[in-house]
């Protein structure tokens, strides 16, 4: 077991397409350890050439500044591509954090994935 304890995040990211939206369900914590997984999922998403991206996190996820830096990178890339980004599933605390950092300007924050899909569809 414990030989090399996995202190890095291990994420499982599910990708699915719903209409014009690519939904990425991110399971697990979001830290520097999420880099490989997140980047891979993002490039798979972009291969599908969707105008909207929805990131769904787990409410229990632990997200730290290392993870947030990755998300900022992803938002920057999406902006370059003219792609809309929405985020759902975040706990109240992390929505506050994202707000403090001012990155809610670049991604719509939604309570849940369904609302987010509706928002993205009508906008």
């Amino acid at each position, binding site marked *: 077991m414990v030989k090399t*304890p*996995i*202190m*890095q995040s291990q994420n499982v990211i599910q990708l699915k397409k719903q209409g014009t939206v690519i939904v990425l369900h991110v399971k697990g914590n979001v830290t*520097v*350890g999420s880099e490989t997984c997140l980047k891979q999922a993002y490039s798979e998403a972009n291969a599908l050439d969707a105008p909207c991206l929805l990131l769904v996190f787990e409410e229990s996820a*632990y997200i*730290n*500044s*290392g993870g*947030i*830096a990755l998300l*900022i*990178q992803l*938002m*920057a890339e999406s*902006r370059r591509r003219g792609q809309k980004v929405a985020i759902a599933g975040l*706990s*109240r*605390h992390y929505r*506050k*954090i994202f*707000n*403090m*950092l*001012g*990155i809610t*300007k*670049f991604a719509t924050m939604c309570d849940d994935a369904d609302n987010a899909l509706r928002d993205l569809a009508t906008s």
Partner: protein
Amino acid sequence: MDEPDASPCTCIEEKELTVKISSGSTARMLDDRTIEVNLPSKMGYERIAMDFSACFARILGFDPERIEDLRTAVSEASLNAMEHGNRWDSNRRVVVTINYDEESLTVFVVDEGRGMAQLPDERQVREKIAQLQPTRGLGIFLIRRLVDHVEFNRLTDQGHAVKMVITMAGARS
């Protein structure tokens, strides 16, 4: 949201902390309102410091929202202690000491490093984020907004301590 100017007081003068702390695991003043955790510098161990502080705050009756603020602040300060203070040398320790008084909880996060010459420039960090540019300084940016008071102190007998005070009432949003 807090206006930048309303961010809690921060000082980086080299001075002694009120409670004398020496990094490592030598003698420390641990009174009956103080708990302490001692960790190696390893990726992910900041979560132990985080849960530890949350558990104490919960027992003391802090509300869930303040506990979340505390968790993030302790996690970021511990990550910095391991990364910048101890340079991920797993033989170097991070010591997190928490005590409480009538109105607040005080956390010290101590590493074995030399501290920093200068705090990241808040305005610059904000501008970079506003342009979605990569930037260092997110951790300290958050700490300053989440706790009610923060100090960064180089210790006389080697080491660096972040002192963070969080009050029960002082919820930030």
